[in-house]
């Protein structure tokens, strides 16, 4: 169960970060663009156990604060202990493909 607290969007379980621009996010609850430093009364905290479970399933997690992908369990624990926001979900960007010339 999620614990309901007043917090910044970046720390909220509803928050989905833009895959390229880390100052843009998306709120799954509101269904609209939000910004990481905004705070919201509807925000809910990311539950550590869920992050760990997702890490076990996906094999990776992304630290929003550090902008890095974590593959190692010890690394994950370290970022959790620092209170970093970890996720496996991003805002869906449907136009990046049109902005990315081939490179193969």
């Amino acid at each position, binding site marked *: 169960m999620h614990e309901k607290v007043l917090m910044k969007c970046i720390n909220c379980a509803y928050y989905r970060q*833009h*895959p*390229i*621009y880390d*100052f*843009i996010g*998306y709120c799954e609850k509101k269904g*609209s*663009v939000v*910004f990481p*430093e905004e705070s919201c009364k509807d925000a809910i905290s990311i539950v550590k156990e869920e992050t760990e479970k997702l890490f076990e399933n996906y094999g990776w997690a992304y630290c929003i604060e550090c*902008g*890095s992908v974590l593959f190692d369990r010890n690394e994950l624990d370290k970022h959790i202990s620092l209170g970093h926001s970890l996720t496996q979900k991003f*805002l*869906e*960007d*449907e*136009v*990046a*493909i*049109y*902005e*990315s*010339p*081939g*490179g*193969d």
Partner: protein
Amino acid sequence: MKSLNYLLGGPQGGGLETSSQVLSWAFAKSGYGVISDREYYSNIVGRHSYIHAKADSEELPKDLQYPVKLLGAMDAESVFTHFTDLDSGAYVIYNSDLNSTRLSQIPSVEPEVGEKILKILKKLNIEQDLGSLVNYLKDNGVNVVGLSYRDLLSELQKKTNIVAAQASRYISTIIIGASAALVGIDPEAVKYGLTRRFKSGPVLEHNLTFSEIVSEIVSSNFGSPLKLDPPRGNFGRLMIVSGNDIVAMGKVVGGLRMQTYYPITPAADESFTLEEHERLGEAGIGSLTVFQLEDELAAVNAAIGASLTGTRVAAATSGPGFDLMVEGLGWAGMNEAPVVITYYQRGGPSTGQPTRGGQSDLLSSVFASHGEYPRMVLASGDHEEAFWDAIDALNYAEVYQIPVIHLVDKFLANTIRSVAFPDLSKAYINRGKIVQEPGKDYKRFSFESPVSPRAFLGKTLVWYTGDEHNEEGHISEEPENRIKIMNKRMEKLELIEQEVPEERRVSIYGDESPDVVLYGWGFVKGAALGAIKMLKEEGVKAMYVHVRTFIPFPKNTVKNIYSKYKDVMIDVEHNYLGQAAVLASAFANVEIKKHILKYTGRPIYSNELKNAVMRILKGSEKEVLEYGA
């Protein structure tokens, strides 16, 4: 200002293409000439990309140069990477929310790039954070347009509901709106550009509004300090096209009926453009066919197969793909099958630098083969040449029944330019000798002439084999036959020597009594023409010898110019060996001893070429250029 050199930087996939295209269209709509080169990593999304561009009030520019007067930065990395490219009095548009971002915190910065930047920051006594860098720039004559991208988006969000899945579009528009304000582009021209890019719907509406908001903020604070002079060029009808696009256009005009390919950078975009215009009816009848195969071996062989049925064909590829095509080309040479290979050069060897440019495949295109067979090698120096070369290549291939290799470099392929609409009345299609009703005595490889009439599979029985063969096409290893058929094939080279005029092989630019002669090919052309103008301002008269065909080689012109100017003749190329100079030695027996070479994967800029020429004139024998991020 007569012209504006500018840079737009940002993460790959983050909207840079949109910013560049909209600004290019807006400049062109306002009557300015534009050129923009795209530089990007092969990692597809997230790595640093940039557009280096120029808008000109008097001409359709062909060269790129540093320093720049405007940098539009979508992210912190763009400022860190390009602050050394700025001219005095330049303007930087950047995201002031990122002031606390430290260089070491940016994961997309390549380690070697990071070290290089760090060294410069240390030398200039600048802290690693963006805010400190920006303050340094302010203190050193650079005008900083700091905008809170977050606040701008937040403001827009209050007025409308930003389309989340297209959020990067709005970042593009910040750069567009701010740049347009500083340069004083007509808002209607910006509107035209945005409309052309986004077509219709909420994203268009939002971005039209957003562009106005951003422009208003910037112009009210900074005015339009980079305003270009009113356009004075009477350019007529223009196209804004990439090199890939214009080769595709040339092929369509040249009557291409089938294009084969396997996707490879930087060639694939040409095939994609052709695919967009592929219109086939139920029976496969309609426009040209674009055929993507499983690899380049299949691509060249499918093209050759189609050629044997009388189809006008081409294949497009890049270095690694061409290597795979070489055996097939030999088969085409043996069987006198007309086929065009559009060869987009990138940095090699191996995978090399897939998204970076180079001119290191010249010797390969001229010599790649086991055994000997005739071929032609054309090389395009700009978009205009690429259009006509694409048509000529198709004609030459069928007239002489040979493989024709059309060299284009990545710089040209990925550079978007405003180009005058070609005079299509000058275009023609020559399919060479064709026999429609071959009799029973028909010999596909008749010894009567180096070029014997073609009859097509599907209409008549013709024998083809990779083995040596007789006039009918049957295998023969008999010595006298071997001499005759080898002579028949190879004598095409003499025919080509006689029929392709010298002025088709080479173009001469600049002063007729020069102090220095530049010798080059391909995308060097723009930089050379730009450098000639700059050298003139320094009191140096320069000529540029631009080679357009390597087979046949313009040996008379090169010999003649060399005989007069050998001590001041400089080979200028995007490779290590000076490959065009090697060919000048092989084909024209001249030894060009001075070289200006660049093999970083970035194009030669006219200003660095001018400076290198000046160093050569002061005694240097060889200059290796390295400018560009």
